[in-house]
């Protein structure tokens, strides 16, 4: 039965391409307007395929998917009229001006010219591109193009905004501008659904997220819940002389950490108190070249759940 209250509801949702299963029977549900919901996972985890199914441009291979109470296969146009989409790669028309891009896109939604003109002014203001309105898109920077794509996705005042890797390829400054704008949208009640392989992005933006790996959902919760559930308050990162790395890896287990991860270049000790753990390591007669005590992040959660790192 379809729940009309849910914004998006997926049950055993599956997407296959030939023999390859990109999305392998995932369940999730969004019910709260203004929530920011994220899919966190490495490249190839099935995030983009999921987003395309939600965007009604990719028919599910199996399972159930309901968006705004409607079926994406039969009601695609009606659903898309209420969605905004920021794709992973910008699909702006580079040969047209900033303004013309919004005009064309607004026309796709059947909006009258005066409505588009009014919204264009406001949206360009919102993404801080008012002074470039009449310029061609081609020479704009990556960050500006992404902001323009966001403005374009808002031309129909969507109820749900889908963002696939919204800041991939942007420099740190440009990423912060995008995050700031997305944060404001959320405050204004727009529901955000985003994918990312950046744990800092997920922590910054998402109220709730699912960790995806190899087409499946490995865990679900708020960033804080996930860290509490799957990691320790602190992490001690140790770096040894490469010659001693292996030997040290064998010994640190006795330092009393809840869990130890041995990476190619570092050893991570998952502990309650990092400084105490460091003292314990030294007590074992080990002297790391460098050591760092930090708080747990979603990267640690991912490592714990999948045994692999996010951004490889």
């Amino acid at each position, binding site marked *: 039965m379809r729940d009309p209250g849910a914004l998006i509801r997926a049950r055993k949702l599956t997407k296959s391409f030939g023999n390859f299963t990109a999305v392998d029977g995932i369940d999730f549900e969004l019910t709260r307007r203004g929530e920011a919901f994220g899919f966190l996972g490495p490249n190839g985890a099935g995030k983009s395929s999921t987003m395309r199914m939600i965007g009604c441009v990719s028919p599910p291979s199996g399972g159930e998917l309901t968006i705004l109470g409607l079926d994406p296969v039969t009601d695609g146009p009606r659903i898309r009229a209420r969605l905004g989409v920021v794709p992973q790669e910008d699909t702006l028309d580079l040969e047209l001006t900033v303004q013309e891009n919004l005009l064309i896109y607004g026309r796709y939604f059947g909006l009258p010219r005066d409505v588009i003109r009014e919204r264009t002014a406001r949206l360009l203001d919102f993404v801080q591109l008012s002074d470039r309105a009449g310029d061609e898109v081609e020479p704009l920077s990556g960050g500006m193009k992404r902001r323009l794509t966001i403005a374009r996705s808002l031309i129909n005042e969507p109820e749900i905004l889908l963002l696939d890797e919204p800041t991939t390829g942007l420099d740190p400054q440009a990423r912060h501008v995008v995050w700031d704008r997305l944060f404001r949208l959320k405050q204004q009640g*727009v529901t955000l659904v985003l994918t990312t392989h950046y744990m800092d992005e997920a922590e910054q933006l998402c109220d709730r997220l699912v960790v995806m790996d190899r087409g499946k959902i490995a865990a679900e919760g708020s960033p804080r819940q996930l860290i509490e559930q799957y990691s320790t308050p602190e992490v001690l990162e140790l770096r040894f002389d490469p010659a001693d790395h292996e030997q040290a890896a064998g010994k640190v287990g006795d330092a009393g950490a809840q869990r130890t991860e041995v990476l190619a270049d570092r050893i991570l000790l998952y502990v309650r108190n990092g400084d105490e753990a460091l003292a314990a390591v030294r007590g074992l007669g080990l002297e790391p070249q460098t050591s760092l005590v930090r708080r747990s992040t979603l990267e640690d959660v991912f490592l714990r759940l999948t045994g692999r790192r996010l951004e490889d």
Partner: protein
Amino acid sequence: MAVTSSTGTSSTGTTSGTATTGTGTAGLAAERDRAGQAGPWEMALRQFRHWLVNYRRTWRGSAYSSFLNPVLYLGSIGLGLGTLVNKHGTAQLGGVSYLAFLAPGLLAATGMQTAIGESTYPVLGSVKWRHTYVAAVSSPLRPRDLLHGHLLFTTLRLAMNCVAFMVVMAVFGAIKSPWAVLALPAAVLTGLAFAAPIEAWAISLTKDSPFAYLFRFGLIPLFLFSGTFFPVSQLPVWAQPVAYATPLWHGVALCRSLTLGQIPVLESLGHTAYLIALALAGLYAGHRTYRRRLYV
């Protein structure tokens, strides 16, 4: 609005940079209904306007060549070569001057060339390089609306080029009958008989090299051997059925009968039906290929 610093989520008030508006909830709901539930014609027109906006940037050059090409062809081959041909006697051409024989053939060929130009690179480019189709399917438009919108635009381009061609024809005195007004829709239809199937094929490609084969082994032989420059009866006997089967020959025969005012009714209806059938087959195939390419 104040230009906020790049990281200033908390430093400025929430009043600056508002993305959502005062459009009331009821107004928005009505707007979304209109956006998502429009009929196929309105959906196609939304995409058609996109092509118009694009065309605004390049129309001058294309308008110039749509007049220049017929002047060059009709002047050099129609008049120049035609003088020699006419001296030889024109019984094989149906007793008309070579110019009057050639011009309607080139009119139909203009339809074909315009159609192939519009339905190859612009179509593949929209999905592969410019990504405009990729963006458009995230709106309420469906793949078939994109196909319809582009075919509408192609029809407009066909009409423009064929009108220009017929104006030049008239100036050269190559229009012999008032029935020639029907040669315009005939030439446009000839174009659509090419545009729809080629567009259906073009959207399915992953690279553009097959276009070169289309031009080399499709467009050029058809242009030369479909009765455009000389009657098909001059071809070797074995080649004649091949020429009669090609869509351009039907277009040429139809346009020629209309501008000369020598119209065999049944045959002309047959040509028309053939061209319409080809265009509809392309449309049907395009519904499938557009969907397959854009809904992955």
